[in-house]
């Protein structure tokens, strides 16, 4: 349907992903210096944030997303987000990545579902950008990239009509359909019901530009009101609040899109079994994906001498359960089929080879125990 979803999808999902990663990394940081083995310092955290944000908001990446195109499948989207997360010194195991993806999808689904007006999708996106800017505020190069992208988004999306925004929103809702992963933060705040469906209250302020229901007005042929009557609206609505700002900086007013995660309460997540039906258009999308990865700038790729593995969410027991539950023969073979070779651009192909080569190097160095913070991280992440 809508051909303009991708930039907003990546900003919002990327934003949610960064909120969660930021919370996890802060929760483990207990000292400023790197001397204590296995601890993520403030600098490490900032480095991860800068690397990921720098990649997400790079001009080539965003330009690729801004081209009019259909929304990716879940499989493709998850793969690209995984690459994004790995644009830093951090490594996530597959189970963690699955959990992270589910969390970010459910958060964004909630925001799109409860979005007051279709146009407010932009305010939600800008809220994410605001917080992302905060996360990288100490690195002006990255802040500039964020600002440039934000300006570009304002330029492209400000002129869309409400009808076009609703089409965009409907496209996203179709994408999120039937996903009812329960998230304990949402359950606790009662924005999600035990069956996984989101709450939709019939109370509170109506969206900006909408009138509180309850009035019928009748006019004569000259347009003069001849009668008005009221009817029971069946809810308790109030007048709208002021409109949020659509500028580069400003009060967005609505709370959707703001960071729900706080450092002191690392929240539990709960996964339900996903539906792994293969997408017949996967080959086309994987080619697109290949172009996208090839266009990720070389300078954003890590030059780290070692990799950090992170186990974000699970205890050892849960990880075993995950391993049993998620290995699906069909899925494995789908990934086996990926041939990232649809490169017309020699330079991109060379870059991609260098990138994948780099990952291979890091995998090897994993075996080296000295200077490897990865394994100790596992114990530390279990704050649940």
């Amino acid at each position, binding site marked *: *349907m*809508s*051909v*303009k979803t991708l930039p907003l999808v990546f900003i919002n999902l990327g934003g949610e992903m960064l909120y969660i990663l930021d919370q996890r990394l802060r929760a483990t940081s207990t000292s400023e210096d790197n001397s204590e083995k296995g601890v993520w310092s403030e600098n490490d955290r900032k480095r991860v944030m800068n690397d990921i944000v720098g990649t997400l908001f790079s001009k080539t990446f965003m330009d690729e997303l801004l081209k*009019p195109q259909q929304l990716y499948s879940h499989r493709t989207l998850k793969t690209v987000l995984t690459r994004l997360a790995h644009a830093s010194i951090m490594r996530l195991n597959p189970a963690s990545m699955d959990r992270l993806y589910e969390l970010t999808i459910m958060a964004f689904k909630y925001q799109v*579902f409860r979005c007051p*007006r*279709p146009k407010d999708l932009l305010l939600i996106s800008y809220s994410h950008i605001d917080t992302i800017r905060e996360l990288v505020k100490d690195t002006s190069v990255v802040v500039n990239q964020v600002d440039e992208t934000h300006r570009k988004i304002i330029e492209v999306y400000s002129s869309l*009509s*409400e*009808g*076009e925004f*609703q*089409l965009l*929103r*409907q*496209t996203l*809702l*179709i994408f999120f*359909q*039937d996903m*009812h992963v329960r998230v304990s933060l949402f359950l606790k705040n009662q924005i999600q*019901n035990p069956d996984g*469906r*989101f*709450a*939709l209250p*019939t109370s509170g302020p*109506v*969206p900006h*530009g*909408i*009138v*509180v*229901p*309850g*009035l*019928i*007005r*009748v*006019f*004569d*042929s000259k*347009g003069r009101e001849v009668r008005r009557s009221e*009817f*029971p*609206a*069946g*809810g308790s*609505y109030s007048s709208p609040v002021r409109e949020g700002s659509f500028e580069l900086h400003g009060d967005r007013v609505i709370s959707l899109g703001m960071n729900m995660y706080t450092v002191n309460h690392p929240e539990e997540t709960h996964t339900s079994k996903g539906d792994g039906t293969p997408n*017949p*258009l996967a080959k086309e999308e994987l080619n697109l994906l290949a172009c996208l990865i090839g266009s990720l700038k070389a300078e954003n790729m890590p030059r780290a001498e070692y990799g950090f593995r992170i186990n974000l969410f699970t205890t050892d027991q849960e990880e075993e359960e995950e391993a049993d539950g998620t290995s699906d023969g069909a899925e494995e073979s789908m990934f086996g089929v990926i041939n990232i070779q649809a490169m017309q651009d020699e330079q991109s192909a060379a870059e991609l080879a260098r990138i994948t080569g780099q990952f291979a190097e890091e995998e090897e160095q994993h075996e080296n125990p000295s200077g490897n913070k990865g394994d100790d991280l596992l114990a530390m992440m279990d704050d649940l």
Partner: protein
Amino acid sequence: MYHKEKSIQIKNSASALYNNLSVLRIAPRRLTYFTVVHANVVNMVSASWDGLNYSHRQLQSKEPNVATSTSLIMQVAFCVLPSRDLLVVTSQKGIQIYESDGSIMVYWHALDTSDAPTAQAVFARGISAVWDNYICVGVSSGAILVFDVPSKGSNITLSEVLEEHKEPITDIASECSGSQECIADLVSADDGGNLCVWKSGKEFQLLNKIPGFDMSCSSVKLWKGIVVAGYGTGQIHLFEAVTGILHAEVNAHARWIYSLDIAPFSGLLLSAAEDSLVRVWHLTVTPETNSVEVAHLHNECVTDTQICGAKFCDGDGYAFAVTGYDLSEIIRYTQL
């Protein structure tokens, strides 16, 4: 006034699309067909009136003879003509017309994507039968395709293309009162809230254009010469079709309206929106004084659900059915 009946389970959940429920009552066989769109699939249920038999069928939107191409479906609707009933499916790729039980596809029309600017989505949306032999379908460019349908067989032809709207068509409706006196027999609505009123024929005639106010009109109905239009502001406007005079304005819902329906014999109006509410109203038209009355009768709340389809199941409005986003059932209500 109404109470909830046993729901009908469907194979997939309903997608968040305007007017996402179509109902066809087949009295001689004591059956009712329901269709609901889920992404690229149409879920069709045939329900017997005694509530004992349900049979399901799924249709996909795809070009004939092309195995792998499916596309997202925008709308599905039954078209009732004097000689035959047909099922029309509109998607990103084109328009398919089936026999009303979904068994055979009788016609396929591919959308022309070549002259559309690539930055815009291309799709068909808005379906209505009109007069004896026409089916009208709207397109994202704003054009309305008029198909001439023979009384049997598959020799359906594109008779005319109406180009008045400049924004994507959202919904099209024909005069449903059965009255022969109404001059206007078709109304079309678009994403800017603009309404066009037509008289059908070998060449369709534009009778009136009612300008919008930059807010999508997602659902429209035409009854006894009155256009009933539902908007993204949650409001319903009632216009006199031929003159464009605004008879009434209802602040009906707190969110975007997704579906309107009228029971032609009783003048009952059904409105449903993203705010999880379905409302039943009564319309009275007094031709002598040229006035319209709107009375509110009933509310139903489908908890935590953004409603995407609501239709009366019969011409009197004795029963109605509702679909909601992410919901895998058709909820039914009947009068007490």
